[in-house]
């Protein structure tokens, strides 16, 4: 026999056996579906846990001030109103401080990224005495409460004539985020294979050119993610902001400052307004988060 030789075999079974098998199969399938289903349910539950408070504050931000104070509260912004949010946004100081926040955050982003790129590259690519000490030192600076750092810094800034200036706050924020940025950027460079760089050097680039033409373009997405993280950190930072600025407040500083002096409608609108940018930025960098941390923890 030279025909097809593989067996299309089915075990010969009695109908009873087949029925038993089917029952077995149904049970197993149910178990399998139950497992998948419960994971799904768990995911949805966790998502609700995260989203519910955000939804509630959004409800508040889009209700009238009267509804904000009402009891029991509505769980939906009905009637829909931008009165509360309008009031918040039209309050003098809010637009200014939003602009300040943007400027501070962007400046901090630029300073910290520009400084972190060479430092991160050094940590990623060179083996040199003190490398681990520097890594450790960089991490440990985060252990010191900013609260107290702000005091002598304010003195330094006053001495330099930089007190209550947007750029001095940006410099402070850059200092706060620099350690993390350096480590993240280092991990981004580590993930760019050294071979690319070596290949570029073989084909006539100097080390600088190789970095500029090959490594940096490959690292741009990761660096951008790190930069956005700096932005978010600066956007949220309130302590240094409230101590180092008076007339040029950033948004969180302005909100914190007016928080204990204003009613719930203002509070809730402020809470909502502060939330929004972070939602957007996290959307942009969500995929890079894991790479960044994955490298750091190694």
């Amino acid at each position, binding site marked *: 026999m030279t025909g097809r030789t593989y067996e299309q075999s089915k075990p010969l079974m009695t109908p009873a056996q087949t029925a038993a098998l089917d029952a077995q199969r149904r049970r197993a399938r149910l178990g399998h579906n139950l497992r998948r289903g419960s994971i799904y349910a768990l995911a949805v539950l966790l998502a609700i846990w995260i989203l519910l408070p955000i939804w509630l504050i959004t409800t508040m931000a889009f209700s009238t001030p009267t509804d904000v104070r009402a009891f029991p509260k509505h769980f939906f912004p009905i009637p829909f109103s931008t009165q509360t949010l309008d009031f918040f946004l039209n*309050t003098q100081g809010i637009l200014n401080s939003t602009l300040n926040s943007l400027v501070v955050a962007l400046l901090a982003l630029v300073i910290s990224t520009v400084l972190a790129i060479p430092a991160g590259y050094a940590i990623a690519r060179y083996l040199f005495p003190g490398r681990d000490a520097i890594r450790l030192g960089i991490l440990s600076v985060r252990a010191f409460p900013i609260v107290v750092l702000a005091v002598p810094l304010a003195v330094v800034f006053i001495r330099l004539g930089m007190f209550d200036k947007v750029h001095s706050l940006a410099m402070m924020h850059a200092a706060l985020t620099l350690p993390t940025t350096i480590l993240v950027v280092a991990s981004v460079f580590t993930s760019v294979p050294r071979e690319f760089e070596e290949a570029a050097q073989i084909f006539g680039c100097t080390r600088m050119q190789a970095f500029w033409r090959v490594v940096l373009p490959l690292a741009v997405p990761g660096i951008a993610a790190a930069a956005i993280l700096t932005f978010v950190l600066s956007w949220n930072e309130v302590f240094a902001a409230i101590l180092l600025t*008076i007339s040029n407040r950033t948004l969180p500083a302005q909100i914190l400052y007016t928080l204990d002096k204003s009613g719930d409608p203002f509070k809730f609108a402020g809470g909502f307004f502060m939330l929004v940018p972070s939602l957007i930025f996290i959307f942009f960098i969500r995929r890079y988060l894991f790479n960044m941390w994955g490298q750091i923890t190694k």
Partner: protein
Amino acid sequence: MKRGHFLLLAFVAVLLIAGTVFAQGDTITFLSTQFNVVEEAEKARAILAAFEGGAVEFVGSEEAAMIDLLKAEAQTGAGTVDVIGALHGTFPTLVNEDLMFDLTELLASIEEGTDVNDAFVQLGRMGTEDYQYYIPWMQATYTMAAHKDALQYLPEGADINALTWAQLAEWGKAMQEATGEPQLGFPVKGLFNRFLQGYAFPSFTGGMVTKFKSEAAVEMMRFLRDDLWPYVNPESINYDFMNGPLLSGEVMVAFDHVARLKPAFDERPQDFIAFPTPAGPAGRGFMPVVVGLGIPFTSPDPEGAEALIRFMLSPETQGAVLRDLGFYPVVSGVDTSNLPEGVAIQLGAVEALANSPDAIPALLPVGLGARGGEINEIFRNAFDRVVNKGEDIQTVLNEEAATLQTLLDETGAACWPPDAPSEGACQVE
């Protein structure tokens, strides 16, 4: 993230930075520790818009930040602030640091047209005779506010304009029994120290610091802990501003600064009444708050600053401040006839308080300089330890009195009203 996003962000950054650098204008800068509440600052700016001597930039500030800024500007010699508005209690530090112009001549020229309250002018000299550190700007105090629904539970025979603290406690009890919820509210997270310094201690002991650990003070603490606080809404620990809880119906009766009660009266004048704070065994302690205007040496535009102060002291502006911000005038001749309903209600309570026969005016602490905040914490701590932590009253008062004495000794602060004047540092009895 695409590369394009990154470039876009960088571009926006450059634009924004360029924008702020060129956005400096030529204005009179008015730095104030008052009206830094959002709504208030809005109204203050509206009033300042009527000033014809130039554009005014009104900037709200914390007290210490203001002091630090003025100090820093004095050191560098290049100033930005033209006029400051601050509580009487803020000025001692500025005086110590020798930062302020003498405004005697300005005051004299103002008084040619308008009479400024002499007691406040006296305060503005900060104990000197020939140097006017500030010109009084406006005054305020603390009163009670109640929802009209609460009146039905008022104890029998009690006159709401001559209430005692014991009656308030009774009232609170009656309201709680009727509604099932505690209906009294105090701004424990807010200006609560003023309640202790200017109302509780003077009403029960007749003094503020000298009688800090007296028997009367012990009795006061016991009253707060056992008689009053059981009927105070426990969420008071999270209240900054009493108009919110009043408006939302969390409490029916509240104590707070007039300006911080004002939104409730503005929004629903038909629902709320204002009345003087209650009296205790020693009298009706109350705390007038004086706000002054001064010009730092570093002002880039002293002429503009003087014009602005003159504007602020005009009866029209004073009337506008009363109408819109609920701070009371310090000059005569202010028209109070056409006040909004809410302001009128509050003004009535303030006048009743100041004119009540048993009134004991208690001033803000004077002479503590940069450590002015510490005395507030001492009073708060005493209250916290007794009422919230349940510690022994006499022990707590003795311990906090010791801290208080150290503070007074180290700063050399003399006694201030309602305590009798002292030679040298004030002494706790």
